[in-house]
């Protein structure tokens, strides 16, 4: 127990020393995760809205696929993206393997189905309420999607948060396609895994503390926004 408190103390010391290596890792983590979540929302919001608000052939299939993809094991995604990006793979010539871009791709693949599936549920509920009024007003398909997404905006914030949670905590896929290269593709989770195995617990724990703090802060922000939206009956 004694050593735990010692390690924790050094870890907190590292955090507040704003160790440049540490900050670099945190910065890259945020860059990769936020990029992946942004792209996933760009694809997943409209895709989910379409699946939630329109009846078309293959709609049920789309839902099944999205739900199945939600539970994709990260290492499998990592492996598939690796195969695509490796020198002999179809995207090999782009030379993306072991770059932050590769990690963004892997996380986007992981997060997009989550965003799309949750968005579909949110939009479906809203559409129950709005559908006939939209038909009555003569709202066209594009306006429908835009209006539903806008009116679901506070719920979608929570959806994006779920995507963020999955991406930021993810280790299996990014370690495969990123390679965990120092100063290039080392992010919080992969560094924690590596440093723990090397016995460098202070750095690992320092990153763990920061990861937790970020998770808390982002959740608190979203909950606060939602609470004010609920007061205005906008959520």
């Amino acid at each position, binding site marked *: 127990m004694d050593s735990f408190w010692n390690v924790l103390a050094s870890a907190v010391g590292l955090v507040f020393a704003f160790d440049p290596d540490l900050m670099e890792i945190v910065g890259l983590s945020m860059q990769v995760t936020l990029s992946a979540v942004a792209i996933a929302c760009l694809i997943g919001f409209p895709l989910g809205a379409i699946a939630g608000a329109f009846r078309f052939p293959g709609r049920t299939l789309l839902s099944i696929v999205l739900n199945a993809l939600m539970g994709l094991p990260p290492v499998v995604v990592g492996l598939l993206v690796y195969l695509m990006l490796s020198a002999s793979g179809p995207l090999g010539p782009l030379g993306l393997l072991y770059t932050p871009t590769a990690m963004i791709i892997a996380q986007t693949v992981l997060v997009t189905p989550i965003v799309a599936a949750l968005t579909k549920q949110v939009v479906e509920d809203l559409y129950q*309420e*709005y559908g*006939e*009024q939209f*038909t*009555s*007003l*003569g*709202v*066209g398909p594009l*306006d429908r999607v835009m*209006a539903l997404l*806008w*009116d679901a905006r506070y719920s979608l914030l929570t959806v994006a948060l779920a995507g963020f949670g999955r991406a930021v905590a993810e280790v299996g896929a990014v370690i495969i396609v990123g390679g965990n290269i120092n100063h290039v593709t080392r992010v919080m989770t992969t560094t924690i895994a590596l440093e723990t195995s090397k016995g460098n617990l202070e750095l690992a724990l320092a990153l763990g503390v920061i990861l937790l703090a970020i998770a808390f802060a982002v959740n608190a922000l979203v909950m606060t926004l939602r609470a004010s939206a609920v007061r*205005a*009956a*906008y*959520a």
Partner: protein
Amino acid sequence: MRNLVQDTASTPSISALPDTREVLLETRGLGFETNGHHLLTDIDLQIRRGSRTVIMGPNGAGKSLLLRLMHGLISPTHGDVLWRGHALNKTARKDQAMVFQRPVLLRRSARANLKFALGVRGEKGGKRNGLIQKALTAAGLSHLANRPARVLSGGEQQRLATVRALACQPDILFLDEPTASLDPASTAAIEQLILEANANGITIILVTHDTGQASRLGQELIFLQDGEIAEIGPAHGVLKIPQSAPARALRDGQLFVKN
């Protein structure tokens, strides 16, 4: 025109009236059936431009269903709905508007709700702002324009929904029990909006359970029972001297039970 309709109290059906106004909406053998249940059967109606029609009948009689069919929100399983003599389609529906029993308002401000509806109808810029202002004034909501629509009171919400429908400048306005849960003042405000709209030439079809409202607003009255027209005729006549057993039961405040 109004008097013409009311002076023929004993005439049994609207179509028999010597009314020269254009038939705006017509149903022919209209029916709706699901899982072998006939929810609406053989509805023949002619709705003339500028008229005010009230639909009454007990819960589950098919009043809302009839409105939704006439507005083209659902397709009939039998018969046709004709709009100016042609099959009702998406384009024709743009000449119609509907106020639902529970107002469906977007999660936006009162003003943004109007802006959205007018935007859908292709109104932009200054003209749209003018129409929004006019609608807010008509609803008595100018001071609440920037409030979230869904924190407004029930009466304010229904007024907003009504002026939103009217802002779309429809030829016909369907209203499904618009004042069912409102206090007398809010009810009067909605009735005022309806009568003003009608004075401006908008045809009105209104569902209500309130005989007072039916006599205040109705020229023609359709009494529905079990998905069929039990009685149809000039409103004050049907309300005063109902010919059919279900309508009599309503007047006498009894539950009509078919034997």
